[in-house]
């Protein structure tokens, strides 16, 4: 990836640009008793990157928006000092703020598919940034747009400028979004989760661009929930929780010698090669229950699930068809976890649906306990379905909206009505939910609790295989850690096999015994998880692994490269 921020089009910020200086910033929204942001102090200097890290609800995005005067309607903002390039920002009028936004401070949001107007060509969005601040005439702005697009590494910029975000690939449109934020060479760049929802390869390109801007002298404020992403770019890190900064220091200090327990827990919670076989959230207890008679699956015997040459095509535009899955084979042993990893559109979720016999393969077949599964008739399949269950990314949509937790779980229990109630209690114990949630509607539960209900439901029919399709992807990292720990403990106790599907290489490496790497519907590499991730053979896997931001760990427990 050639990164040429052309000096002709990107001016180095002048000497008066000294960045942000914030002291004791507090933000309170109307109707809430506690401040959303409290006592936040930070300094953002030219040529440096400060990362603001925290989980959802920590107040990091509110802090970022406050820096450009877009906190939100009715919010009360207080600060001892709030300065940009030495200028006091308190009490600015909207018009004055508008002069700062885009010109002095460029703001990059996540996924350009939604952060650029989907109805307009990307070129016009970039031109808008110039026009709003009275930059040049129309013709000059047009030329500048082309220059900016080529500066962020977009090939054929004249053509791309006329296209809409949905006509561009993920990488190109994210570059266009960055070009619109950098159009006027602002001295400060604020990037709010700029890589969230992007594939790892695109993520790496975006981080490279931001890094290049930093090297040219911009002050960069990077907001993220992802410590690994942050560790690649940040010079300084501030960790936020419940509206406060709990720890702040150089990236090296914070990552290698965290002083606050929350920072430590956050670092420990990131799944990766190093965390295999260990708990991610050791401070959160898991109550382990002895399985009843017949509860534990026999670890011996042949594969519980086997796929042979699966092919699936979907109708494409016109009369064409798109091959979503092309010749995928695998087998899953009792008590084993097989990870399937791939970027969006790689066909991994279609494989999951075929494994569950919810989608008919166009060719190939799936065997369950050595018996025909996808090829069997519906009548034969139905009683067997309790052998293979699933947990999805969004548990809420997979629950009937009218039902309580009790009914959701009981519905999947294969037992006489009398015994169901006791079984529901048992399942709630296993997944670590208080029995009090029985009468609740899932809507009133937190994301992690909902996912535990989904796991309880999946366990209810005593399956031998569970398909986990991006089951932890939507969770905050600390909640994700707890759910992954729970899944690990359940597997140990019950001997259930997991087909674990995720786009997140770290998570897959953490949980899997063996992995399949998928691209464009094909398996490009498969094998033992450690081998595939530490010594990938195929160029695509190598690229994938290289793109993955890694966290430099404090305690190198295992001496891996």
């Amino acid at each position, binding site marked *: 990836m050639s990164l040429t921020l052309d000096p002709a089009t990107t001016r180095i910020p002048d000497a008066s640009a000294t960045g942000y200086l914030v002291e004791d910033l507090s933000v309170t929204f109307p109707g809430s008793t506690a401040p959303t942001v409290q006592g936040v102090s930070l300094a953002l200097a030219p040529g440096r990157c400060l990362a603001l890290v925290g989980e959802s609800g920590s107040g990091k995005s509110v802090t970022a928006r406050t820096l*450009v005067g*877009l906190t939100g*309607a009715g919010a009360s903002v207080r600060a001892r000092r709030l300065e940009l390039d030495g200028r006091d920002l308190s009490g600015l009028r*909207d*018009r004055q703020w*508008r*002069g*700062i*936004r*885009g*010109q002095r401070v*460029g*703001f990059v*949001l*996540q*996924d350009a*598919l*939604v*952060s*650029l*107007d*989907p*109805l307009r060509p990307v070129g016009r*969005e970039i031109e*808008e*940034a110039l026009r*709003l*601040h009275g930059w040049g005439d129309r013709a000059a702005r047009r030329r500048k747009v082309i220059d900016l697009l080529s500066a962020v590494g977009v*090939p054929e910029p004249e053509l*791309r400028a006329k*296209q*809409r975000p*949905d*006509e*561009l*690939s*993920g*990488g*190109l*449109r994210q570059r266009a*979004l960055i070009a*619109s*934020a950098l159009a006027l060479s602002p001295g400060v760049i604020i990037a709010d989760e700029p890589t969230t*929802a*992007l*594939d790892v*390869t*695109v993520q790496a390109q975006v981080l490279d661009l931001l890094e290049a801007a930093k090297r040219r002298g911009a002050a960069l404020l990077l907001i993220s929930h992802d410590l690994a992403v942050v560790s690649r770019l940040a010079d300084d890190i501030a960790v936020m929780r419940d509206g406060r900064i709990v720890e702040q220091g150089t990236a090296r200090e914070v990552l290698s010698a965290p002083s606050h327990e929350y920072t430590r827990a956050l670092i420990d919670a990131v799944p990766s090669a190093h965390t295999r076989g260990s708990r991610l959230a050791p401070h959160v207890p898991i109550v382990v229950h002895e399985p009843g008679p017949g509860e534990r699956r026999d670890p011996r015997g042949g594969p519980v699930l086997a796929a042979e040459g699966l092919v699936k095509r979907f109708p494409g*535009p*016109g009369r064409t068809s798109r091959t979503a899955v092309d010749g995928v084979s695998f087998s899953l042993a009792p008590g084993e976890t097989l990870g399937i990893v791939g*970027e*969006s*559109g790689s066909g991994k979720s279609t494989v999951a649906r075929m494994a569950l016999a919810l989608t008919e393969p166009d060719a190939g077949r799936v065997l369950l306990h050595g018996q025909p599964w996808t090829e069997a008739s519906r009548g034969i399949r139905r009683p067997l379905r309790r052998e293979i269950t699933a947990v999805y*990314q969004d548990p809420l949509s997979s629950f009937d909206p009218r039902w309580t937790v009790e009914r959701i779980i009981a519905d999947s229990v294969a037992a006489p009505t009398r015994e169901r109630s006791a079984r529901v209690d048992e399942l709630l114990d296993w997944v670590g939910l208080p029995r009090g949630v029985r009468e609740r509607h899932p809507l009133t539960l937190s994301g992690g609790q909902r996912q535990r209900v989904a796991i309880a439901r999946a366990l209810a029919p005593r399956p031998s295989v569970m398909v986990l399709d*991006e089951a932890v*992807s*939507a969770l905050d990292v600390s909640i994700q850690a707890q759910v992954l720990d729970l899944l690990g403990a359940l597997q140990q106790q019950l001997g259930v096999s997991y087909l674990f599907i995720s*786009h997140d290489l770290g998570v897959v490496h953490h949980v899997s015994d063996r992995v399949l790497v998928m691209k*464009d519907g094909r398996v490009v590499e498969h094998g033992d998880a450690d081998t595939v991730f530490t010594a990938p053979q195929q160029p695509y896997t190598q690229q994938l692994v290289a793109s993955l931001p890694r966290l430099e760990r404090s305690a190198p427990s295992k001496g891996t490269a």
Partner: protein
Amino acid sequence: MTGSAVDEQPLKRRVGNGVLPRVLGRLASAVLVLFAAASATFFAQALLPGDRATLLLNQRTGQTEARSDEELAPIRAEYGFDDPILVQYADYLGGLLSGRLGVSYQMHQPVEALIAEQIPATLLLTVTALAVAWVLTLVWTIATTRRSSRIDAIGSGVETVAAGLPPYWLGVILLVVFALGLGWFPVIGGSEAARLVLPALTLGIPLAGFMGQATRAAFERALEQPFVTSARMRGMSDLGVRVRHVLRHAALPGITLSGWALGSLISGAVIVETIFARPGIGRVLVSAVNSRDLPVVGGIVIVVALVYVVVNLLVDLAYSGVDPRLATE
């Protein structure tokens, strides 16, 4: 949780791949609609209880009595009532293809001539009302949506009330207040423009309320989109964001509704033309229904279906203009 781009290869522009089939599909369904309209009106006339020749003769003479076959025979011959039903059906459809809609029982005059004479006034009224509704909707939505909780509540409250106003009542109120009470507009007479104001408002205000509800919902959704935040972060003003970005997204449901709306405006025109004593096909329709002049009723139904079909093709074009994603999908 990953972006939806399938791969890193830039997607080629897919123009032309789906446009032609879509247009053909539209035309096919338009033809289907017109065919169904024609069939429905024909069979409604042919298969109704009662003898058509008797009905026709009684209507012309203003009497209600049983007629002898001698009296009815010439009429049956003239209108072809003696032919087998399928022959009549074929004749009717054939007549439609050459622009004939039958002959009015009551006025003994070709229906197409009757409609051609009356429809310009109705179209003027409905198109003006649609324009009024759009202007009211856009101004009202931009001005009130998500301004403050109070303004927003007033905005949507007014919309709900406006959408619930029956045109026959609103028309009377406007007439009583502005024409009879304040005398701002002529009750009868006056210039064409002055006569148009109250009827157009009568039709436009409830429609604006209705479209406003859909537009407001879309406007709120669009305001929450990240691209709006992006635009603000570029230094755009609130009004700029509303007009240049959000409005385009918010207008989409209104555009979709416009095709349907013109139909409902023609319904409303029936009532409004009666209240304000305006000429137009609405009044022709009411008197035709009253006297059971089925060819006229049927002819108007077909013409309205034709208008609907044409307007919806236009709406489709307008939609692709505002949302270019459709043209390339």
